[in-house]
């Protein structure tokens, strides 16, 4: 009763508060046959239909294509229901609040894991994944960040993703540009080997009189964009959100982290097209496609649009990709995106079993190969390391490289509280220019410490 009443309350709060492209997929191989010995079986437990919730984007369409194969193989219809990114988290959490059975499986953000696991919304998949050997099929980093919380598995890594970089090859490979760059900076113009070179290149290509700018990075405040963009720099300058004891003071607000933020702000204020003060993935791709910038950062999931002649008619054949470069001290991490697929803890055991059967089928190598061929970012080790995968798209090599050093924001149940603080303080310093980098980090560290103390992680 309490949660239903709570839902009604949320409705009231909302009423008071608010009066308020996708690329074509690369050609896919023929549908994989079902794993050996599992061809066209009768639906188990009388379950004839399953529902998966995911955000509204291309990978969800690819998953629906795979789901159609599953129906042919097993006779169970699987519907992938898509919700716009902006409201996806709200939709899922509303279902959690009601202990609802609107979905059987959900492809959820890595940051939700702690919340969903500790509050009982996800089914514990540890025994299932170990018994079927699914945990051995994916890279350790993806299993850790997309699937693991408190030593247990709650999700099967589905869509690997992280922040990467796209650049204009025609500019980078132009002999005149190369010569001018070498004359100015003393080293060859190439894919940046560290974040300081990234800055130099951004500066070099910033020519406002020609409406060309060096770089575009995330600045959006709505959800988590500016935090994800800036943490790449914080990690690679040697700082972190916390240490193993959940201590933040002295770990996050260091001199190195301040330098990282100063660099991020310099990129925003000096080398980025004007008007991108609240920019996320769409604005990044738009800036690149319009020819305004030499480099952008974005999640790999949004890079297919850049190599598609339909969506990027002027530069689709002039785009290169690289992994996030290391910081000056050599630390190299990339902000984690991507999601794992989890099973709803509130559905019947029969439906839970049917959902597990689907995940087992999805995890099989032939299906993962097709998943990758369609445009999904597989986390399967064998597929990732295969030449077929690396040669399939221009961004796959950078993606495969990045998957070895991904790193996430907080994924404890209090991540929403922590995120609101980091978004506000980072936006305040980077975009608005209020205060200093050190002051912004001090504020974040102080407020994060308070939240962690209140939640019992710190004394």
């Amino acid at each position, binding site marked *: 009763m*309490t*949660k239903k009443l709570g839902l009604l309350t*949320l409705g009231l*709060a909302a009423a*008071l508060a608010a009066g308020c492209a996708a690329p074509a997929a690369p050609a896919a191989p023929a549908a994989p046959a079902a794993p050996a010995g599992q061809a066209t079986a009768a639906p188990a437990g009388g379950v004839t239909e399953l529902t998966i919730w995911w955000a509204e984007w291309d990978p969800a369409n690819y998953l629906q294509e795979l789901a159609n194969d599953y129906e042919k193989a097993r006779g169970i219809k699987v519907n992938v229901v898509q919700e716009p990114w902006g409201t996806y988290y709200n939709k899922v*959490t509303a279902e959690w609040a009601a202990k609802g059975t609107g979905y059987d499986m959900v492809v959820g953000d890595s940051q939700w894991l702690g919340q969903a696991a500790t509050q009982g919304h996800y089914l514990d998949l540890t025994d299932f994944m170990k018994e079927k050997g699914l945990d051995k099929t994916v890279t350790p980093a993806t299993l850790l960040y997309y699937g693991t919380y408190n030593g247990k598995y709650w999700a099967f890594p589905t869509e690997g993703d992280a922040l990467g970089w796209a650049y204009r090859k025609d500019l980078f490979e132009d002999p005149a540009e190369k010569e001018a760059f070498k004359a100015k900076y003393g080293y060859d113009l190439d894919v940046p080997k560290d974040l300081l070179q990234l800055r130099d290149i951004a500066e070099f290509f910033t020519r*406002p009189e020609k409406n060309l700018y060096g770089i575009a990075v995330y600045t959006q405040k709505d959800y988590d964009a500016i935090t994800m963009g800036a943490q790449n720099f914080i990690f690679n300058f040697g700082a972190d959100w916390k240490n193993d004891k959940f201590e933040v003071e002295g770990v996050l607000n260091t001199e190195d982290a301040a330098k990282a933020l100063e660099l991020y702000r310099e990129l925003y204020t000096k080398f980025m097209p004007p008007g991108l*003060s609240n920019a996320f993935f769409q604005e990044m791709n738009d800036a690149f496609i319009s020819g305004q910038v030499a480099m952008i950062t974005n999640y790999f999931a949004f890079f297919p649009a850049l190599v598609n002649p339909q969506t990027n008619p002027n530069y689709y054949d002039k785009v290169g990709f690289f992994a996030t470069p290391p910081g000056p001290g050599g630390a190299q991490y990339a902000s984690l995106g991507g999601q794992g697929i989890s099973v709803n803890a509130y559905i019947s055991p029969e439906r839970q079993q049917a959902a597990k059967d689907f995940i087992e089928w999805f995890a099989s190598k032939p299906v993962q190969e097709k998943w990758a061929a369609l445009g999904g970012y597989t986390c399967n080790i064998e597929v990732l390391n295969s030449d077929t995968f690396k040669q399939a798209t221009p961004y796959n090599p950078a993606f495969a490289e990045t998957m070895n050093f991904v790193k996430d924001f907080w994924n404890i149940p209090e991540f929403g509280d922590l995120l609101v603080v980091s978004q506000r303080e980072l*936006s305040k310093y980077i975009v*608005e220019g209020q205060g200093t980098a050190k002051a912004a980090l001090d504020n974040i560290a102080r407020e994060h410490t308070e939240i962690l103390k209140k939640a019992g992680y710190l004394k």
Partner: protein
Amino acid sequence: MQLTRTQTARVHSRRSLTDVQIQVLFIAPTIILLVLWNIFPLFYSLYLSFTEFSVIKPDVPPAWIGLQNYNKLLSDPRIWQYFTLTGRYVVTTVALQAIVGFGLALFLRERFKGSGLITTLILIPIMMSPVVIGLFWKLIYNPAFGIFNYLIGYSVPNSGPDWLGEGSRALWAIIIVDVWMWSPFVMLLCLSGLKAIPDYLYEAAAIDRASPWFQFWRITLPQVAPLLLIAILFRTIEAFKTFDLVMGLTGGGPGDATELIAVHLYRAAFTRFTTGESSALAYIILVIVIAVSNLYVRSLNRIRGENH
């Protein structure tokens, strides 16, 4: 046609309903819906505002903490900062809407060739979704290619201000859009008030050789005042709840330069999921809106009393 015994009994039973019973039957569905969807959540959320509760922790029941949520909110300087910001926003945007809307109504009061078309065109912004308007204006404000800077004199791209990226300008950028969108609403109400003023009042004033300013001040304004005040009341309540426009334009940023109280309430309720605390904040906002509305209603009654 002959009725069977059962049909006759049904007819008798229907006829035996009293007028009051029929009224109750008609009203009951509405009352039930109101109680279920408005009254009950209103009181339940009031209860939750005195508890520590997160709606996404269904297994953890609300824990009674008395006035702690209210104490915490009212002693948080950041909340006061957001209330002050919201107050500035509400006063500025509603005042500008009243001036622009009333001015437009005066302009369109006399019928002239094309006045109907102009009225329709002016009303278009009201009919559009605030989210779509937010996205449009994001482009309009773009310092590289947006038309806004060009119109205010910055003919060279990138030479004008970044309206949405600068803390001091971002709130004004939202106010400008809100005024553009909702002044026509004020105009519409004022126009209906202006058209209802009897001509003989002006004729009598003209005979007494009253100046146009005197006529405006002593006839036009007092006659339109009740409707203008109603428009201001509606717009004030709406301005307090401004959310979608902010999310479409700035997301509350840069920093918290446009973090209006409704946006902050959204984050408390749906990002941090502090349901108890956000219920308390919702009630604080509700009390303020009711208090402000009450002031308006009193003024309205006074004006009506004077007019009669």
